[in-house]
């Protein structure tokens, strides 16, 4: 409870206020939530009411005032009844919260109704025309004993009406006072209610005619101070629309007039307090205090409403901007469609009323130019932008300054084209920057000069920062999608390319073959293939398209088609290469060429025919370990598109010995470098083949790759890498024949 203490307020009062506050909400609300107990409350309140009526009836019949003790009991009953009514009303009203405006007009309506009814009742009294001033009201002047039964009824009816109106007013205004409450304001409110209650109870058994004592004076002062404190809690006004505020002004002024007229001694309800005072003096005091507070609160509300009326537009606009900004943040999470996002970003400043037209320019990063593209406009056609302003010049300044720029004098700026009836007076341009990158600019404009205030610039720049993040996210998302799509495409390309390579290695008598090709990227420009020309002859090809990646892969595919279709018609290596050169020359780009090594092995004769079009030399190793590079002369395919290719092309015929191994490969093998930057090279390859020459083709192939990996210290390559090993063991048949 210590934190509830506040300086300047008696701790006891603090403690009391907090206790009441908690207990009230705790016990009574819980009790009232139970239907049976609610009914019990109502019945109890009604019993109190009728008991008090009965008391007055008896008093009227007897014609003499009661003894003080009985009067005290009577007061207790009356007050208990109204306390119960307060809690019941509190319970019911709390379940139906209403808007501030409705609070005002329902209070007004009830006040009007009660005033009308009371007025009517007082009128009836007057009509009876009882003599004397007090008698005019229907009470004995000295004793205050009611003179007629009608007086008793009126007295209680008026008291109930006024008290209930006061309760309604307090309970409804409570929501207004406690709007955006703090602990402090909540405590002030309950302290006011409690002090009003305590002050009223002080009047119990007191004669209204007596002069107020010092205690009462202090009580009144305290109540008034607390009333004033609470009367200035009017922050609900700020959030009303213009129309609601205007209505509020009307309602509050009517309520002020009505409350003032009914509270004034010579007002529309003359001496109606007399009835209440005769029924219960404390209740009269409480009602008076409550309605006075209502009057005070209406006055402050009225004044604040009036003062806030002119700024309503600005306030609503600011609130609208904030809302729009949040809605953009929401949009960021949903809209990844760039066009939608661009439009949403462009619309908001206009829709919130900050500007009259807006457009969004995005720097095209791909073209690398500073010239931005207008991607969205709002309240002005896209075609008009370029005629209205020099976008390139404006954007240049924005890019240089990288902060919001206001061009206040549209007519004097030469980048804003002067044209009669031109709608641009002021331009505010804001850079869209994320992660230190300038994505583009948001341009908002107004038709008047000096159209943007500092707060506009501020809110637009905050907004632009949000928008930049949104754009950046959308872009990243798009890039991610694109990457995924490309990666899928490349996966497909790799599969297709793998299918272009032979599925099964050829199986010919006496010849063992092993081959592999690994692209550096998803797809590559290396190619190897085999084709059995007849039972005895196998054509093989290893080729390397210059460059890497996708373009190389397309030429590789073309070469595959040429190999598959041409080989049978032109089986001799020179014929084939010439055909291939002719076929490729028409499609190859000027800077692209293909190196090819093409050979035919005759497994019966034991002969290798080989031609080389600019390719790495083949390695021939005998069983005994004698090795050499086979390097007949030849230009790469595509280097010469005339007759020179054929002229320089040589073919080599090499008789094979059983156990001879032919190794063909692409430059990816010999040019692979280790971490020190040294190439694997021909020598090392030659040595490795020599070392492993006695192994079977597959094992030899594997050993060569292992040797390369050992040398490189890794298994990925910088270049496409193809390795084909052909080992001719000769058949007994053939060896015999060659021996004879």
């Amino acid at each position, binding site marked *: 409870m210590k934190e509830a203490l506040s300086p300047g307020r008696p701790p006891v009062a603090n403690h009391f206020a907090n206790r009441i506050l908690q207990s009230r909400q705790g016990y009574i609300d819980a009790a009232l939530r139970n239907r049976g107990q609610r009914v019990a409350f109502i019945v109890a309140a009604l019993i109190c009411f009728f008991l008090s009526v009965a008391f007055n009836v008896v008093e009227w019949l007897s014609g003499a005032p009661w003894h003080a003790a009985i009067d005290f009991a009577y007061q207790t009953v009356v007050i208990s009844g109204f306390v119960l009514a307060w809690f019941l009303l509190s319970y019911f009203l709390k379940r139906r919260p209403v808007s501030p405006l409705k609070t005002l007009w329902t209070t007004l309506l009830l006040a009007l109704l009660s005033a009308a009814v009371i007025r009517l009742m007082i009128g009836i009294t007057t009509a009876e025309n009882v003599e004397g001033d007090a008698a005019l009201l229907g009470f004995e002047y000295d004793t205050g004993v009611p003179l007629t039964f009608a007086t008793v009824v009126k007295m209680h009816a008026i008291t109930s009406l006024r008290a209930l109106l006061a309760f309604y007013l307090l309970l409804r205004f409570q929501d207004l006072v406690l709007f955006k409450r703090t602990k402090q304001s909540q405590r002030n409110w309950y302290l006011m209610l409690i002090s009003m209650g305590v002050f009223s109870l002080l009047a119990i058994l007191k004669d209204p005619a007596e002069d107020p004592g010092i205690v009462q004076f202090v009580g009144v002062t305290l109540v008034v101070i607390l009333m004033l404190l609470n009367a200035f809690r009017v922050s609900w006004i700020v959030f009303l629309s213009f129309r609601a505020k205007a209505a509020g002004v009307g309602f509050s002024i009517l309520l002020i007039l009505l409350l003032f007229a009914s509270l004034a001694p010579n007002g529309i309800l003359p001496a109606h307090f007399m009835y209440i005072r005769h029924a219960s003096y404390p209740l009269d005091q409480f009602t008076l205090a409550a309605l006075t507070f209502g009057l005070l609160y209406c006055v402050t509300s009225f004044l604040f409403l009036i003062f806030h009326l002119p700024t309503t537009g600005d306030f609503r606009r600011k609130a609208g901007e904030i809302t729009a900004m949040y809605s953009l943040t929401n949009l960021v999470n949903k809209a990844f469609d760039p066009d939608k996002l661009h439009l949403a970003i462009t619309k908001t400043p206009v829709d919130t009323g900050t500007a009259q037209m807006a457009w969004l320019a995005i720097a095209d990063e791909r073209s690398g130019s500073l010239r931005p593209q207008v991607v969205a406009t709002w309240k002005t056609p896209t075609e008009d932008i370029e005629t209205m302003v020099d976008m390139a010049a404006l954007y240049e300044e924005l890019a240089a300054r990288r902060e919001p720029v206001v061009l206040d004098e549209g007519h004097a700026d030469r980048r804003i084209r002067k044209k009669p009836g031109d709608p641009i007076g002021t331009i505010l341009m804001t850079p869209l920057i994320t992660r230190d990158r300038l994505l583009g600019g948001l341009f908002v404009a107004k038709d008047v000069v000096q159209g943007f205030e500092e707060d506009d610039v501020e809110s637009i720049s905050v907004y632009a920062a949000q928008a930049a993040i949104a754009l950046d996210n959308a872009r990243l998302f798009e890039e991610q999608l694109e990457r995924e799509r490309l990666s899928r495409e490349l996966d497909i390309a790799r599969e297709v390319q793998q299918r272009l390579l032979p599925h099964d290695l050829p199986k010919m008598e006496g010849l063992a073959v092993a081959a592999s090709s690994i692209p550096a990227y998803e797809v590559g420009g290396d190619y190897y293939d085999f084709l059995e020309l007849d039972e005895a002859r196998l054509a093989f090809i290893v080729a*390397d398209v210059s460059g890497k990646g996708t373009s190389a892969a397309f030429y590789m595919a073309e070469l595959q088609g040429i190999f598959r279709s041409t080989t049978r018609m032109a089986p001799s290596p020179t014929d084939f290469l010439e055909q291939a050169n002719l076929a490729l020359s028409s499609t190859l780009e*000027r*800077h692209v*060429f293909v190196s090819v090594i093409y050979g035919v092995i005759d497994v019966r004769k034991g002969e290798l025919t080989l031609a080389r079009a*600019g390719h790495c030399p083949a390695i021939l190793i005998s069983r005994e370990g004698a090795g050499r590079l086979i390097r007949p*002369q030849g230009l790469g395919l595509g280097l010469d598109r005339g007759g*020179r290719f054929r002229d*320089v092309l040589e073919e080599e015929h090499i008789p094979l010995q059983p156990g001879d191994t032919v190794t063909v490969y692409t*430059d990816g093998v010999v040019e692979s470098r280790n971490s020190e930057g040294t190439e694997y090279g021909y020598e090392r390859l030659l040595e490795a083949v020599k070392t492993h020459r006695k192994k079977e083709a597959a094992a030899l192939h594997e050993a060569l790759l292992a040797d390369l990996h050992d040398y490189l210290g890794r298994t990925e390559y910088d270049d496409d890498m193809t390795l084909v090993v052909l080992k001719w063991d000769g058949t007994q048949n053939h060896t015999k024949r060659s021996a004879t």
Partner: protein
Amino acid sequence: MSNFSVGFREEAHIRILDLKGELDAHTVSELEAALQKCREDKNHHIIVNGAHLQYISSAGLGVFMAYIEEMREAGGDIKIAGLQANVFNIFDLLGFPLLFDIVEAEEEAIRKFDADRNEKNES
């Protein structure tokens, strides 16, 4: 970080390009730009000095192919001089010596250009 560079020199009417470092798919654009500049300057007599060229990939070789025809049609040539053995081997494997004038020393290339010109003047 590219470890390739192209230096420009003028020798009489001949533009000499000094290549340094490794010419591969990543650095090839620099040589392309250099040859492009020669073309814009209407300088068709070009000697590529490869004394400091450590490596050339097939993409690098492609650049020569892309420009040679045009230079020759304009009456000029691209002569290649001073290649290191391993780099020459790459040129040689593809048969470039059959298509290009590849000489050992830059002076030789200059002499050849002069001889060509004298020949032309005489005819």
